[in-house]
């Protein structure tokens, strides 16, 4: 094996996080105090040693590009290979490809030039710590053409309803991929296969008027590929709605989840040079995540504070997620609220959302 080639395909990811995706795509949504959702997929690929990663984007990717830069935090600022952000920019008049196959077809150079020979293909709605080296070992052991990654969830949640399910036989091979809502093997939108076979399948699909790679080349399996199912058993959160965003964020306040997601192989993200968080004498912080640059004088309970948040003395933040650089002035009370970046909550304001349906404010507002 010569190495992994990463493909992060955002084409299927709908902007369903209301205010949080007004101005950015889902992959760029801030998560867990200091990350963006895409950091998790990128970090997993980085730890697998992927040297070429392409990102198929179609819309609202400006903040994503700002976040990624030339990819230095993920070791992707390479002379050879590295990070390629590939928006739709194609001019082949004979092009007949449609759907997400367009991205692949119109960026063939990326695949031909990349040095790796195994494709890791993912999205960004699943936050996890998949070890692709382990997936690849399993892939080899099974002698599979494709290995899809799934997680057997104990309890089905509303956010799972949008996920495909994977049926696996006793020997670990996939017998069916469908969307039956009561099935517990959730497909994590991640698979690996050899680059040669991947490109072969792409050409076949285009030649047969198909549009979507996973559905048409793998799920419907016209060429009878050997598809293995790799069961991932670690932490996985599906973020595809405000409700799932809120709930999964809050779940990180459980030390077990925090450890699983963060303790080994730290997730990499764009570096900011904020000072460490400061807690004033009046601070009362309990069961919360606090990023750097915060200054806390008030009360913070069951909440997540992103970088550079100010909570003044006498302010209260409960069960809330406060994104970068918000200011909560004294006397303000927030409960079950998500504030997007740069929101200012003025003196003595009270904002209370519902536990299941938090109140979300858009970026750069003052209330």
């Amino acid at each position: 094996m010569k190495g992994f080639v990463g493909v992060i395909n955002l084409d299927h990811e709908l902007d369903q996080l209301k205010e949080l995706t007004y101005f950015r795509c889902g992959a760029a949504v801030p998560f867990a105090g200091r990350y963006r959702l895409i950091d998790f997929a990128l970090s997993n690929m980085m730890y697998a040693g992927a040297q070429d990663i392409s990102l198929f984007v179609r819309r609202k990717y400006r903040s994503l590009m700002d976040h990624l830069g030339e990819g230095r935090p993920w070791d992707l600022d390479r002379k050879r290979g590295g990070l390629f952000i590939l928006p739709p920019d194609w001019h082949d008049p004979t092009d007949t490809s449609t759907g997400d196959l367009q991205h692949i077809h119109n960026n063939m150079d990326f695949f031909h030039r990349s040095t790796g020979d195994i494709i890791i293909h993912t999205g960004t709605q699943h936050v996890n710590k998949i070890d692709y080296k382990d997936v690849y070992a399993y892939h080899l052991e099974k002698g599979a053409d494709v290995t899809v990654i799934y997680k057997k969830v104990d309890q089905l949640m509303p956010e799972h309803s949008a996920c495909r399910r994977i049926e696996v036989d006793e020997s670990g091979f996939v017998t069916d991929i469908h969307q039956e809502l009561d099935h517990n093997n959730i497909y994590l939108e991640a698979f690996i296969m050899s680059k040669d076979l991947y490109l072969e399948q792409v050409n076949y699909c285009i030649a047969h008027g198909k549009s979507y790679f996973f559905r048409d080349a793998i799920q419907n399996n016209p060429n009878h590929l050997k598809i293995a199912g790799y069961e991932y058993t670690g932490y996985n959160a599906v973020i595809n709605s405000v409700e799932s965003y809120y709930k999964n964020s809050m779940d990180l306040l459980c030390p077990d989840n925090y450890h699983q997601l963060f303790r080994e192989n730290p997730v990499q993200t764009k570096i900011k040079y904020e000072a460490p968080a400061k807690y004033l004498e009046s601070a009362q912080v309990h069961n919360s995540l606090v990023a750097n640059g915060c200054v806390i004088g008030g009360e913070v309970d069951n909440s997540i504070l992103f970088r550079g948040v100010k909570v003044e003395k006498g302010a209260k933040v409960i069960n809330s997620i406060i994104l970068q650089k918000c200011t909560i002035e004294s006397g303000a009370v927030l409960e079950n609220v998500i504030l997007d970046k740069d929101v200012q909550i003025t003196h003595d304001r009270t904002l209370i959302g519902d536990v299941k349906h938090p109140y979300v404010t858009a970026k750069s507002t003052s209330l």
Partner: protein
Amino acid sequence: MSKKEVVAMLLAGGQGKRLKDLTKSLAKPAVYFGGTYRIIDFPLSNCANSCIDTVGVLTQYEPTLLHAYIGVGNDWDMDRKNGGVFVLPPHERQEGSSWYQGTADAIYRNLKFVESFDPEHVLILSGDHIYKMDYQKMIDYHKAKNADCTISVVNVTLEEASRFGMLNTHDDLKIYEFDEKPKNPKSTLASMGVYLFKWDVLKSYLIKDEQDPASSYDFGKDLIPLLLGDNKTLYAYPFEGYWRDVGTIESLWEANMDMLSEAPELDLNDPNWRIFTRSPNQPAAYIAPSAVVQDSIVNEGCIVHGEVKHSVLFFNVEVGEGSVITDSVIMPGVKIGKNVRIHKAIVNEDMVLEDGAQIGVERTDEKEIMLVTNES
């Protein structure tokens, strides 16, 4: 190399003996400060913020960590095509090999390096101090005075004066005498170890000083008196603001504690004057339901179950339930078990403190700062 108006030379070879075990295997400029920084971040960030993009860093004592830390300098925006940061350890030469004999000797041995930028002025800095300073303002002052050398000074009390290199000046701040650690100080202007020279003047005096076998090749002791003796134009540049030499365990502890006040004199959170550092990129700190964190600085990667008051926690520190930490500085990666009591201490990097450990609680001297290292 193309011409640069100002080249900075940062003296980072010091051992910092009085920091005891903290500098056992690293140079003083690499010592941690303020929850996330290393001391050298301050002069390097000052350069970056003052638009000085060419910095030579002179290393000698335990340089490996420092070299790796600085790397290509991208964290300070000094990974430049033209200029940037250059690590300059002593090296073998045709004339023979030896260590840097003193601060002036260190610069003398890198004459060719400085010369390659054909600078008008050379800024000499040290990697020992915590301060935020706009060097451009000093450069403007130096040029306005048409000085051969400008030395940045802070006002100290007469009692403190005997610990510093003092500068005796006329009313217009023209320096007539340099007094190293005087018993009877005549002035309250202490040198900050920040010197700005006209390069041609510095160069000729470095060469002159080098020929004196009795010299200790030191800026303060030898070079400045030499310039004064020749009636060169030396001015003191009064610096206003926070400046600390964190050369001892006590002063390092104290400067860390200074950061805890509600509006500290040295604001680390100033978006217009960021202190850049190599980020460990750790997750947001987790403050547990049982935790109390007040009057403290807690960096990312920390997990706090116990009580932290008036203390500084660097990244990746864990504090177990029932533990109480007061008036202390806990360096990166320290794991503190349950029911541990730490008072007025500096706990060195990666230490593991078992459940129930007691540090600094029973003490004979309330002023003493306990230093907890693997060696002690």
